[in-house]
């Protein structure tokens, strides 16, 4: 596992690294350290980071800059910062947890567990991002009709008809999306309000019909879950 720590004060960076190591035990881990936004982007560009631990106030700079730059990436981000007033906005960009400084081992473990066990983030994202050429583009989560997992990427079908490609896996996206987004299939996530109906095709095959007419497969294991969600919605 590759972990990137973006923190400008060396003692704290080492402490974070030591803490993560001791919490995660013997896992095969590689740590990288960046002290500036540019340094971070360089490291990210080189390899596949799995997890990023980010301090929002890097040498007085605005930390959201980094979030905006990295929101489209495949890795998850945990913020470790003394500026708790920045938490709400950070979650809008889709971070998986916000650990206030000074942290203790218990709290850090909680955040790391969230990452590892694919639990949902305490606050869902408002924006997702994709890369177009050299630009990072943000779009609202509310504009999503359907998320379809492809081989290495995820297709996001938007309400305006556009289709964009996201780098995060469906598992990782599921962690930061609001609870009204349902994983109806290994390869599909859709918001509940987009579902018009679902039907049994016979045998173990089920199908969901979206309001726009799209038909997508529904896993047999998830039928019950979907039923429960629909009933809850009706109530």
């Amino acid at each position, binding site marked *: 596992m590759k972990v990137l720590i973006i923190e*400008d004060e*060396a003692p704290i960076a080492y402490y974070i690294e030591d803490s993560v190591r001791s919490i995660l035990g013997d896992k095969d881990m590689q740590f990288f350290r960046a002290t500036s936004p540019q340094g971070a982007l360089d490291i990210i560009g080189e390899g596949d980071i799995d997890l990023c631990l980010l301090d929002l106030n890097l040498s007085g700079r605005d930390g959201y800059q980094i979030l905006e730059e990295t929101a489209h990436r495949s890795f998850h981000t945990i913020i470790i910062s*003394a500026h708790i007033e920045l938490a709400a906005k950070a979650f809008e960009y889709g971070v998986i947890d916000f650990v206030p400084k000074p942290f203790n081992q218990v709290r850090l473990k909680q955040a790391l567990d969230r990452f590892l066990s694919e639990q949902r983030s305490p606050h869902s994202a408002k924006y997702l991002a994709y890369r177009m050429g050299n630009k990072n583009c943000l779009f609202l989560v509310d504009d999503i009709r359907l998320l379809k997992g492809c081989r290495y990427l995820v297709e996001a079908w938007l309400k305006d008809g556009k289709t964009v490609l996201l780098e995060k896996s469906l598992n990782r996206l599921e962690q930061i999306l609001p609870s009204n987004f349902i994983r109806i299939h290994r390869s599909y996530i859709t918001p509940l309000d987009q579902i018009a109906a679902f039907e049994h095709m016979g045998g173990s095959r089920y199908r969901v019909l979206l309001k726009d007419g799209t038909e997508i497969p529904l896993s047999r294991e998830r039928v019950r879950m979907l039923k429960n969600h629909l009933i809850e919605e009706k109530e």
Partner: protein
Amino acid sequence: MATGELCLHSMTRCENNIHRSEMKTPSTRILVVFMGFFFLMVQFLGSEPLGPAEYDDKKSDGSLATHAFILLSWKLYQGDDPDWAMPETDDSGWKQIENIFAHAQPKAQFWLRKTLTIPMDSDESNPLTILIYNLPTAFELYWDGIKIGENGSVGRNLEEEVPGTTLFIRIIGSSLLQRGEHVLAIRGSNFHVKSPGLFREITIGKWNVINNRLQARVYPRLVFSGFFFLATFLAVFFFFRHKRNPSLLFFGFYTVLNFLQTVWILYIDSAPVSTPFFAVMEPLEIISFTLSYLFLTFFVIWHFRLTRPLMLSAVVSILALSPFIIQEQLMSAVNTSSLMFTAVALVISVASTFRGERGAVLMLIASFSLFLRRLILLFPSLALYLQPMMTSIFRSVLLQGISLLFFLAAISLRIRDENRKLHQLELRSRRLEAELLKKSIQPHFIMNTLLSIKSWFRRDPVKGEAMIDTLAEEFQLINQIMTQPLIDISEEIRLCKSHLTLMGLRCDVGFELVSQGDFDHIRVPPLLLHTLIENGLTHSYEAGEEGTFWLHCRKKGTQMELTVANNGSRIQKLDHQSENSIREGMGLHYIKTRLEETWPGNWQLHAGVVDGLWQVHIIIHEGDTA
């Protein structure tokens, strides 16, 4: 100025303009209140039953029964002959004076004659009375050839003459008084007068009217002497509370001198006549009179806070005192001088009103009243055209009363403004203290530092301990200095060094502070330099980069220069736009507020790259420390 530089200076003028336009309405309210007082005062002082200046024989409408008349037209002859008292004497060859107020007295023996027609019979209970006020120097009064009174002793020369009293009243006995024509003659001499002026008041009327007139002279003066006394007391009291501006002290001098003059005039009635009326001739009186106007002008100059008041006062004094050297007649010199002083006060008030200064209208009315008073007394013929308002003595006191009231109004307004400003300063001080506290124990700073200490525990516990000690030291220092508006710079330097040690431990690099220059007796607001150093640490250095801060201090007379420079590498690669927005953050706001609080309007701040170092340069003009 190179790109990336920042230049700030005091914004007092701008703030003043805002202040002025906000506050115009209360000034009108005060004006209305004082106008009310003014009208009340007019009522209180009553109306003076003085009729037209001349007693008109042809209009024998009995008005002599209810009015007193100043006798204006006379026949004058220079010389002396006892026969001239007789009614039969042919005075057709005598000089006819139409207006005795406009005619200069001869410095010799003289006779005045006048024919009167008395329309009614005498009345024992309310006899006809003659009032002669301040007719120098000695005279005898003849009614139809009979000597009815004398004031002093008429003489042929200085040695023979004995001056009479200023106030002279004579009741005309009923036996002398019947309906019909009578001849009033005055035999006088004025050798005691140094420079004779114009003739003064000779009035005839019924006793009750004359008596009222006398009372009307005294009562307003008593009231005014009280006003002036009280005003002096108030002026001096408030001066000691607001020692910065001497305007109140000058006003106090003005009022105390007027108090003395007012009181003096009450005693002058029984004083020997040796002087014309405008002001008493004794040098002390002239000096006090002139000085009172001098101090009045100084008061106006300092009240409006004109630039270079000392030079202006000196120039005005020289100009307005020059009549004493230029003019021969002492009395006219006194008049010209006082007129010039009040004219200057008036001009300054007018200019200030046009500039929209707060309370300037009040000062304008007051100055104008005084100016008018001087002007009218200078041209008694002018006064006649404005009669009956201006001829009587107490009416001129009325003008002075108006001016006193409005000056006091302007002063009260100023005092109220100062109090308000003081109150705001107090509030600002308290706010600054709170800001300082918030700044110095910012949660982010503490949280990061605590985490840093934790970090050191595992790797190097000694450094962790050192961090705790340094943090404690920093808090102790802040606690000591935070309630004071100014601290010795050595304490601030100690605080900065402590902070740099702490930040060095946090970043695991070395930060140091080098101080150069003379630091004796230099006082700065708390956390001023600390904030600059904090800013430098945050924005100038890359992670892991060690740094040096230089503090340079120089004092040139009343000017103090502080320079804080650092060698952070990030400064060289500034993105100007983003840096500017960062600069306007909390740190710089705190510095601006502190500088403005301590040296309002007297500071400048420049920030930019100089010789490869990021430098913040503060220039302070001391002298007027809050």
